[in-house]
Each structure stands twice: as C-alpha cells, then as structure tokens.
C-alpha cells in the first residue's frame, strides 16, 4: 500500500468513526516504521478536518464530532511516543485549560479541550475547581500561548477576572491570550475582565484560538 493510500484510509476511518480500523492503521504505521509526523498530519489530521467540514455543513452533530476527536486523540496517544528522533510534533499552539476554583462543572470545558486537541492544539487540561494561581503557574511552566478559563456559575465567574488581574500584576499579561467560556459568560464580561476573547461553544472556541494566534 502506498503511503498516500494509507493516509486516505486513516482519514476515512476517522470520518467513519471506525475506532478499530483507526487503531489498526495507527499500529500498522508504527510497525512499518513510517514517518509518524506525516501519518499524523496527512492521515489523522486530514480526517479530523473532514469531520469539521461535515459539522460545518450541518451533517455531523456534536456526538459525531466528539467521537471523531476522541478516536483521533486515542490514536495520537499511541503514535506520539514513536515520533522519530525526538522530533516534536508541530502543533498549532499550546493551551492550558481549566474550570475555575469553586466550580466543579467540567463537561463544557472538556468538550472545548477535546475540540482544540482534535484541531491540532496541544492542550493541558487541568480539570475543575482549579485556583487562578495554579492555572497561571502551569501556563508559565508549559510555556503556553493560550489560557482558557471556564465558569458555569455567576458566583465563580469572578475567578476568571482574577486570572487576568494576576497576570497583569506579574507583568506577564502580554505573554498569553486569555479566553473565557461558560454559560453566564458574554463578550461584554470578557471585555470587562480585560481578557482576549469569548466563544459561545466548542467549535467557536477553536476558531477563536486560531484567530488569536493569527492562524
């Protein structure tokens, strides 16, 4: 099988949401010692972009989008340890994401993390109920481009503002783009906090992250 055919098959397996086939092809790429970076970009990456197009066209709904992203992520977990000679995978950018302290609602934030990963971002998901200081420490340590902070409650959304304030106090607010999300969050709130962007849903979050990094 030519490499192009293999890429096509991988892409099809993702679009068909066929986990067994995708896993089989990922293992095959490892066994045959193929260029893993190309397999990721031209096979799995192409597949998830097609999934995104089907979503845009209204043919795929959220479960299909998330399923495609999940299958891709599981395959990436298999492939990445085999990246040749310590080559780092080229990603669109690094993101640290968390639900703010006092708030245990994590499903929306997890969807955003999955979508960002699927579209090629490197995502560090810190979970829920995470203090602002911790989020910033992680952002500095991982040298990320974007900090994503989620809040579902009007009582916890103040924590989102705190993240921006701490960054300013430390004089490092120009090092990161801060994006906010969650049911009570509006673009007006984002403005009030002095953050960089707001997305109403996971797909918009991907678009926002890309536009903030001029991709």
């Amino acid at each position, binding site marked *: 099988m030519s490499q192009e055919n293999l890429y096509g098959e991988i892409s099809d397996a993702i679009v068909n*949401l066929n986990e067994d086939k995708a896993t089989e092809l990922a293992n095959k790429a490892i066994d045959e010692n193929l260029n893993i970076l190309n397999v990721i970009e031209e096979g799995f990456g192409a597949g998830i972009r097609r999934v995104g197009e089907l979503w845009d066209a209204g043919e795929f709904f*959220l*479960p299909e989008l998330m399923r495609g992203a999940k299958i891709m992520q599981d395959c990436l977990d298999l492939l990445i340890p085999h990246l040749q000679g310590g080559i780092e995978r080229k990603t669109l950018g690094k993101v640290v994401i968390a639900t703010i302290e006092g708030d245990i609602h994590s*499903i929306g934030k997890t969807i955003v993390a999955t979508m960002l990963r699927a579209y090629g971002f490197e995502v560090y998901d810190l979970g829920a109920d995470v203090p602002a200081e911790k989020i910033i420490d992680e952002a500095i340590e991982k040298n990320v481009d974007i900090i994503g902070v989620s809040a579902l409650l009007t009582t916890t959304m103040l924590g989102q503002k705190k993240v921006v304030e701490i960054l300013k106090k430390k004089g490092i607010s120009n090092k990161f783009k801060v994006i906010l999300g969650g049911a009570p969050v509006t*673009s007006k709130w984002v403005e009030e906090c002095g953050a960089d962007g707001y997305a*109403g849903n996971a797909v918009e979050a991907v678009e926002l992250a890309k536009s903030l990094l001029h991709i």
Partner: protein
Amino acid sequence: MIAKVLTEQQINIIHQKSLIILERIGVIIPHDELLSRFAERGANVDMKDKRVRISADLVMELLSKAGKNFTLYGRDLSKKAEFGLGKRNYNTSGGQALWIDNIDNKRRYSSLNDVATAVKFADALEKITIPGAMADPHELPVAWRCVAVAFETIKNTTKPIIFWFHDRASAKFIVDIIIALRGDEKKAQKLPMFHPLLEPVSPLSFPFNGVDLLFETAQLNMPVSIGPMAQMGLSAPATIAGTLAQENAEILAGICITQLIREGIPVCYGGICHAFDMKTTQLIFSGPEQAIFSVAMTQMGKYYNLPVYINVGLTDSKRPDAQAGLECGLTLALGTAAGADIFGHMGICGVDQASSLDFLVMQSEIISYVESINRQINFEEKTFAIDIIEKVGPKGSFLDKQHTVEHFRNELWFPTLLDREYYDTWINKGASSMEKRCRKRKEEILATHKPERLADDVTKELEEIVKKAQRNLTSSA
C-alpha cells in the same frame, strides 16, 4: 401516548343519549328518495316536514353495514392515506373563500391560481398526507367550480387530495375524472383518490345537495366522511356532554344515510364539534374545549370501530405566533394521542378567515414535533447502556462514546424551524422570530418545489371533462 377524557361508562351514556335523540327528535333530510328508503326500513318518516325518526335498532343495523376502513391513493399509488388502519394522516384545508399572500398583507378572494400554489406547496410538505385545494376560487361559477378545482388539485400533487364537492350534477363529472385517471370504473372504485364530506347542519338537519351528490359517488363506492360542526351554546346545548351527544347523533344519522344509499360504503367519523364564543359571536377553532371535544369524539368513533377525523392543530390566531403555536400544538398533541386517523384542516388563518401558507409551514413543523411525541420508546436491552454508564462512570461524559453516536439520531427530534441557538449566535444570525423563519421557509419551497407532471394525454382528457362540465352546467348556474 394515550389520551382519554371519557370513561367506558360515559361513552356508553353518550351513545344511549344519541340514540334517544334520533328516535325521539329525529333529523330533517330534505331528500324524498332517501326519506322513502328510510320509510322502507321501518323508520318513522314525516314526508311533509322531511323529518325522520330512526329507531336504535335501525341505527345499529345500518352502522354495522358501514365499511370501517379505506385507503385513498394518490396519482402515485405508493402515496396513500389509510383510514381505520392505525395510521395518522394530515390534510390541508379543502378550500377557503379568502387568501393571504403574506401575513402583513390584507386578505383577498382566492382564485384557481391559489389552488395550484397551495397544492404544489402541500405536495412538498412531507407530513401532509392529503393536500387540500385550500382556495375556493371565486372567479369560477359555483355550478362547475369543484370540477375545475379537482382537476387543478390533481395536476399539482401525486398524493391523495381533498376539495369541496358541490352537488350531484358536478359530482358526475368528478366521478368521470377519477375513472379517466384510473383507466376504468373498476380501478376507479378500487383506488379512490378523494372523497366527499357530508356535513350535517346542526342542529339535526342535512343539506339536500350534500346528500344528493352521494348517489353519484356511491356508484364507485366512494368513502364518505360525516362531519357536523355543532357549536356548543349556538347549534348544540351549552354543555360539553350535551354537544357530544347531539354531535354523535348527527354523525350516526349521516352514516345511516350513506348505508341507505349503498350498503357497505366506507365512512369516516368526523367528530368536529366546536365551542361557540359568546363574546366575539363566532365559532372557536382551538380553545381548551376543542381538545376535550376532539379526544371525546375520537373515543366515540373508536367505540364504533370507525376511522375518526377531528379538527385539531388549528388556531384562532391571525398570525403564526405564540397563540397559534400554543393552540395548534396542544390540541394536535392530544388529538393524536387519542388515536384519531386524520387531523385537519391545516393552513387556515384564524377561524376560517383565510388560507395562509405561513400557517401551513408552522403547522408542518408542529406535526413533525407531535409525531415525535407519539413515538414508541425503544426498550431494547442495548438502549439501557448499563455497560456504557459503567465505563463513563460518575462525573464522566457520554458525548464521545460510540453508543451515543449510534443512538442519538433515533432518539432525538431535530427541528427545521424552531430556534434553539445560543443567544449570541441567534443575534448574529439575524435574531429571527418563528414568523420570519416560517416566511423564509415558505419562500424557499415556493421557489424550488415542482410536483411531478401529469401525463399529457391524461391532462388533455381531464381538460375535456372540465370543459364539458362548464358547457353542461353553466346554464344551471
């Protein structure tokens, strides 16, 4: 879903009261031939007053002869409307005198051109089983109008149809039309495409033409719907129970008429009584009483094992607005849950104030919604997904699971017109109202849908029949 408002005992009481009404008070039928047939069967007939009192025994005997189910077929024989066979059918209006092009415009008299537009439109709507003429073209003489309407309706859809019959003379040409369409009389009888509505005039009387024309359609054993619009407090007692008993009596009398014309004619029980509004002085299309009437009449019709037609999914509103959504939705949900066979007439603005495609678009969405409510819940073992719940565990998410991908499309209804967007997305997409979306969808359908053409030779044949009707019937107009 199952809706009931009457107990078995109450059904029986209404039945008994109706029989008393027919035996003691009787009905007026201004048709001598039919009255003689009643007399031959031992009914108490007063030829001078045109009044017949029918014994309970005769009612039950004639009722037992009536056909209890039938199927209407479109030009495309795979497009069917099945009555009395556990299916739900939806029809658009048989015809309104007035027409509204756009909600904010004034209404105007309808024309034959509107018939074409309306039928073509309903041909495109998946949920409409029986497109109706929707317009009653004022420009054509009444004497042959229904023949032209029948032709125009047939031309614009491949589904079974409904329109208003007028009298016996014009019905003869309509019978010719179905024979020409099907090829011969035998096939025309086997494959009916439309059927007349016998509408008793409450309280307790029948129109001459409505009865007389059945002698013509009976030649093909054409099914008949019997639907009196008794109005509580005006043309029926001011009580729910009294109106139900009288409405039921009128339908039973209508069924007797059909069976005396031809035994075995299939009938549909049209339980379409309404409340009368003591404030505005007109009939109420869709108050809470309408939900009660429709469920009760469905129970009555099913007590006699008959297909049932009810007036639900309607509204008194003049716009496809919140009131319209409330009234159409609630009455239709209950009417379908009661188990009737056909629900109509869709596409009417207010109480028979005009026809409007904007309303029809909204009702089409409501039908889809209500059909989804009436689904059977899937109880297969795999739907419980215990192993998936275990895999996901506390605090997890089901979104990215294969089980979700496999099931969500079957379990979740997707609207075409209802708005469920995020607030900002809704704003960005123009912050549209339901009315606006209905109008947009209407315009899309009008611009794009083309029904399958009627074959040229058949078109010519039907045109000849309409011309002949025009020649023969004009003098009597």
